[in-house]
């Protein structure tokens, strides 16, 4: 094992995604601190055009084949196992994403390598690496000293600046050989399913009233809708609200939902689990109301109120209506 860093690149619909640049920026910082090089694994089909976007890396390990066009955990894990062998990394950086999460645990078990998930900070301390990870829905942080062997680290999206990883340059290219997966390909991609058409595109609405588990039942949703209407905005929600079918899927904010950057994000009864925060961290003004003073939502909010949302909603709706005449 050398002191190299290997980033697993992700791309969607022909573009390298932000998480890749976030990881490359962090990877460059770590490679510099450890005195190793920075590699990136790029798997897909017709991806040669994406290589220059990965110029933050010294080496691109690439496999360009029809069966890798879209992500399937089985085939990608097999090729990445080879890339890890060639790059000899101290750390493999993945996104804590739809792609990265599957690979993290599959590779950890197949290659017998340790792994950590939900990493929000990763730093060197006296030549060793310490990862800070969120657990219990963001209510606790765990500092983990990474073992002295190749370790897989899945990083939460939005934790490191993407700009640091955006370097356009032609790095060295290493072509990964075809790997004969022992039991053969056991999985195939069939098609993309588009998001369902929505009544409202919440990524374009400047004012969002967001509800979480604290709204308690479908019967209470109209109260939030009334406030959203008074503000001239729309209602959206966190995963539990969508899973209970209190709001349609098109209104989901967070991992596998929408990422919003609204002018106002009023979070009602949302604890602020990492999967949700990922989708709303970029809002310009975040006001959160929650009964738990230690709710992680307060660490991303600009203004916070420790209260029962049902105590605040009626007077707030009244106040807004009064001011808007």
């Amino acid at each position, binding site marked *: 094992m050398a002191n190299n860093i290997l980033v697993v690149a992700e791309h969607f619909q022909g573009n390298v995604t932000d998480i890749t640049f976030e990881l490359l920026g962090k990877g460059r910082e770590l490679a510099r601190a450890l005195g190793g090089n920075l590699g990136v694994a790029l798997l897909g089909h017709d991806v040669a055009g994406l290589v220059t976007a990965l110029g933050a890396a010294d080496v691109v390990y690439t496999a360009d084949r029809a069966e890798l066009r879209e992500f399937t955990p089985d085939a990608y894990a097999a090729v990445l196992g080879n890339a890890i062998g060639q790059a000899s990394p101290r750390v493999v950086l993945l996104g804590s994403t739809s792609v990265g999460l599957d690979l993290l645990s*599959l590779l950890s078990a197949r290659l017998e390598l340790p792994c950590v998930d939900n990493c929000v900070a990763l730093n060197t301390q006296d030549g060793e690496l310490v990862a800070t990870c969120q657990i219990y829905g963001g209510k606790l942080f765990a500092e983990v000293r990474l073992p002295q062997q190749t370790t897989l680290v899945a990083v939460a999206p939005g934790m490191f600046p993407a700009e640091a990883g955006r370097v356009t340059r032609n790095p060295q290219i290493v072509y990964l050989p075809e790997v004969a997966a022992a039991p053969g390909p056991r999985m195939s991609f069939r098609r993309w399913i*588009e998001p369902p058409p929505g009544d409202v595109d919440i990524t374009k609405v400047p004012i969002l009233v967001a509800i979480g588990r604290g709204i308690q039942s479908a019967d209470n949703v109209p109260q939030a809708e009334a406030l959203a209407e008074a503000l001239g905005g729309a209602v959206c929600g966190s995963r539990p609200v969508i899973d209970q079918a209190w709001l349609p899927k098109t209104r989901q904010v967070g991992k596998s939902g929408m990422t919003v950057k609204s002018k106002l994000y009023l979070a009602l009864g949302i604890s602020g689990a990492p999967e949700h925060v990922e989708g709303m961290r970029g809002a310009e003004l975040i006001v959160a109301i929650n009964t738990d003073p230690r709710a992680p939502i307060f660490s991303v909010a600009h203004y916070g109120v420790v209260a029962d949302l049902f105590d605040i909603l009626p007077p707030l709706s009244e106040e807004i209506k009064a001011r808007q005449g």
Partner: protein
Amino acid sequence: MKIAVLAKQVPDLVEGVEIDASGKAVDPTSIRYILSELDDHALEQALLLKERSQARVEVFSLETGEARETLFAALAKGADRVVMVQSGQESPPDNHTTAKLFASVLQGSAFELIFTGVRALDDLDGSLGGLLAGYLGLPYVGLVRKVELAGDQGKAIVEKEYPGGYAAELEVELPAVLGIQAAEQPPRYVPVSRLRQVMKTGNVEEQAASLPSAPPLEIERLYKPEEGKGATMLSGSPEEVARQIANILSERRLLR
């Protein structure tokens, strides 16, 4: 068609979680355990397949927390067999250890599908489903929101979630492990009367498994986020708070 569901116990966050004197672990006496929410979705998805295609559903849980209660509830919901895996652990072990335990229990059983929640609150070392698939040499897909069985072809068609509301439809050869993100419908509730009846007449099987030696991650420090760090906290009566919020919106020209 046999489906195994792995049901994990996790701390109930409503009750709060405290850190012990070492500062490196949670205080087990501060925790009330409940079934991991996404494992409940995994069970629901398995029960939906049972209703649609006469699958047999078997639920496995490590003997930690309220596992026995969880297993009785699974029986009451319609599981065909429930098994408590005993390894002498008092609190839930890390996912590598848990995956190795389940791998030893499930190895050689003729399950076509193994379901587990794609993540759990206490995940630090990856997700259980992917680790288990790796140890068993089976294919794995995580973040699954829909599962259909493809007739007699020994395949499942699954939908895997992506950001922005997209999903990928994948065809997976069985046997396979799936990490469930959401069942096709909200998990069903068990009427208390039904649960009581099952607790009298139902059977939770017990199976011993020897604890594998997996070197755990070295946690240096466990800590809570600082209270209210970052946010300016507003206080006062509900009316006062409402006025303060309206003032902030007004200053930012967010009111029409």
